[in-house]
């Protein structure tokens, strides 16, 4: 995975989350915690997952979602899956 590609994924993830949580993208970064910083409920979390699945043609299980706590972890997860 090249640095540029990770940057693209990061940008897509941040824009998706900003859109759904009604936040400004520049307020979000890889350290942003979904639960503690954004106070995401299940509905918002699933909206993000569904939009990212569609954007990258992925399937993300509930078990995998449970392990994704920060934006950085989502970015790394997608990057890993795209590399497979």
């Amino acid at each position, binding site marked *: 995975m090249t640095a540029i590609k990770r940057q693209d994924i990061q940008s897509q993830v941040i824009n998706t989350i900003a859109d759904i949580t009604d936040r400004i993208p520049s307020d979000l970064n890889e350290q942003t915690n979904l639960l503690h910083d954004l106070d995401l409920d299940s*509905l918002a979390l699933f909206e993000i997952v569904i939009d990212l699945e569609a954007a990258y043609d992925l399937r993300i299980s509930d078990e995998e979602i449970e392990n994704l706590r920060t934006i950085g972890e989502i970015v790394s997860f997608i990057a890993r899956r795209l590399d497979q």
Partner: protein
Amino acid sequence: MRPLGNLMNDYERRVNELLLDIFDKILVTEEKALSKGNFSDLSVAEMHTLEGIGLYEARTMSETAAILGITTGTLTVAIDRLVRKNYVDRYRDQNDRRVVRIRLTRKGKLAYRMHSKFHTLLVDRLTEPLNEKQRQILLDTLLSISGFVSEQYRRYVTHAGQEEQKP
């Protein structure tokens, strides 16, 4: 106490009451969770139709009807409603225009995932206090109950089918 319980011994009565109570309460809880949640315009039956379609699949009507164990006519009525409510997308297959496919919309996927979470929480809460051995016993017992009930169901369906064929 349920009237039928009068004819049973204590153990039979307790097992019978517990089984019916669990069955009733899961159904009612499922209904309440739906009606008070974000998808209050969906019935439990409609939610199960979404489950039959699947989260990622683009199934034909007959495939979905077979999964749900209903006729394509019954499914068509249900799908008409779900399309109107924007939970299901119905479209013609690109390779074969005669084939109509259905898939969940974004809203349908959201409802599916939220409903799935409800069931996951139900199972998690139920099995949380159990150790590995107890979990296995629970699973084995449920498999046995499910097998028995399915067998009874098949017998009644077959019997009903035979009766329908009578002049």
